[in-house]
């Protein structure tokens, strides 16, 4: 705890989280057996994670499904208590000071709206203002900022239940920033949205981060989000941190990889990921040409998507 300097939004040291689950058996017989079974096993959702997030940073917190991302977020928000290790959010232990911690964080959980379902957005904002005891000036300042960043007029007086998914996500993000928290957690903020809405949301997050110097911890499966927002990414898999560095570094990591795209006779593109250190791109093209007619050729740098896929598959080791 002594290393806390005041410039960190989140400090995690050797944090672990275990769950106890019942060992279930298969089939109808198994179901009957389970009725009386006391056969529990311990599952480690997060294993020995050490991580520091600085104030004002936007980090991408990535990992395949079930990697332990949301368990980590739940610990940071004070909902779950770590089994062991040290965790500080804004310099405080979140689990022990849940209410206080909540004043300094904002949370958006994907498609799960936290707003009052049947209230117009502006009424939800007013209730939130009262809940967080935001002063009148701060509140009005925030609404002004929102106006300058996005066109909020069409949604301000609309009940949440009548909104489109995009409008709802937008509202949830605005609501999460309303009390000017030090950290905002965004869990899959652009899931299910169309391209233009995604761009709008990313722009908004960047704008708010710049204006208010808010720390943003983003979990997503959409590498477009990562490319647009994050300088730094942390990857977790099976509860263990496997990557923590700049996004540019990530690309140089697999710098010798190229994506080769070949257009077939039927105008469809075929993609191949090639490591130039081991394989020559021209060889592949020639080899392919023997098998089929190639109408067009493109060679791209490796995309973030491909890199992440490689890392998930164990390529970084």
């Amino acid at each position, binding site marked *: 705890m002594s290393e806390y300097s005041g410039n960190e939004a989140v400090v995690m040291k050797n944090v672990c989280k275990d769950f106890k689950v019942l060992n279930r058996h298969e*089939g*109808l017989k198994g*179901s*009957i057996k*389970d*009725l*009386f079974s006391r056969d529990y096993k311990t599952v480690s959702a997060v294993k020995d994670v050490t991580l520091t997030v600085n104030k004002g940073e936007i980090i991408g917190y990535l990992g395949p499904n079930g990697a332990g991302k949301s368990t980590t977020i739940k610990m940071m928000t004070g909902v779950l208590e770590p089994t062991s290790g040290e965790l500080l959010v804004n310099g405080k232990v979140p689990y022990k000071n849940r209410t206080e911690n909540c004043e300094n964080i904002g949370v958006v959980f994907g498609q799960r709206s936290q707003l009052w379902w049947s209230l117009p957005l502006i009424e939800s904002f007013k209730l939130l203002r009262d809940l967080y005891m935001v002063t009148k000036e701060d509140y009005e300042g925030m609404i002004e900022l929102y106006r300058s960043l996005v066109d909020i007029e069409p949604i301000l007086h609309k009940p949440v239940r009548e909104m489109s998914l995009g409008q709802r996500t937008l509202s949830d993000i605005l609501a999460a920033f309303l009390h000017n928290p030090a950290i905002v957690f965004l869990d899959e903020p652009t899931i299910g949205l169309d391209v233009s809405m995604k761009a709008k949301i990313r722009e908004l997050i960047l704008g708010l981060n710049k204006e208010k110097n808010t720390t943003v911890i983003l979990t997503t499966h959409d590498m477009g989000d990562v490319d647009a927002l994050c300088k730094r990414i942390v990857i977790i898999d099976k509860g263990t941190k496997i990557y923590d560095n700049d996004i540019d570094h990530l690309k140089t990591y697999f710098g010798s990889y190229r994506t080769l795209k070949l257009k077939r006779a039927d105008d469809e593109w075929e993609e191949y990921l090639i490591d130039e250190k081991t394989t020559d791109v021209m060889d592949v093209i020639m080899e392919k040409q023997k098998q089929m007619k190639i109408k067009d050729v493109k060679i791209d740098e490796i995309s973030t998507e491909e890199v992440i896929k490689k890392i998930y598959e164990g390529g970084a080791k």
Partner: protein
Amino acid sequence: MNPKRLFAITRAGIMESLHFRLGIFVTLFANLIYLVLVYYLWKAIYDSSGTAVVNGMTFSDTMIYLILATALFNFLEMFVVWDMSRSIQQGKIVLDLLKPMRFRKYTFWSYTGNHIVQFVLTFIPTFIVVMIVTKGAISMGLNILWFLIATFLALMINYNMEMLVAPICFYTESTWGVNIVKETIVLLLSGATIPLAFFPEKARVIVQYLPFRAVYDIPLSMLLGKSGSDNWQGLLELFGLQLIWLVILTLAGNLFWNHAVKKVTVNGG
């Protein structure tokens, strides 16, 4: 309908019910306490009345009737209305309707698994306890067979009542209201809260011909040999009543359901 597929759905239903293991024990325990309450209330009532037989029912008749009615209630309970309204709210109903099997049939058979679990875990133990406590007051003869047949018919009638009410969810969002009205009427007029034998003469004449009675009162009367179920003519009348209502409710449910589904497909859910 392929019997293998029916079996698979029923089996999945059984496994799903068993999944909530602690829930099952807690349910059993809560039921037991409820029965104790029923026992004390009626004991006090009979003690205060000064006579042993009221409206042809002795204390032990009433107890057996009410205890088994509670057990039947647990066994027959379905949440079709709730399930459907939640499915509508989440927009899942369109998917449900697209399932390869007809939605109503699918629902019925997936509940059958739950019914079987409830029958084994609540009804049979309750029945055994009642037999022990009353030292065999329930005669073990053909009446058991009639009871089982009547219960099966009751199950189908109950299901069809649910299915008649459930489509209302397509028209209104008031699930709670719809459900509570249905449940209140069924519980009162079927004899689950107070045996129909205690109803005033005029009310009893009307209630006797309503479908609600077919769910709790008829099976239990057959088990106890009451309401004329001890002779062939009486038995035929009771079964006849069940069958007539089953046909009427099924037809009405079909008509209403088709109309409601049309509404969903028009509005696109």
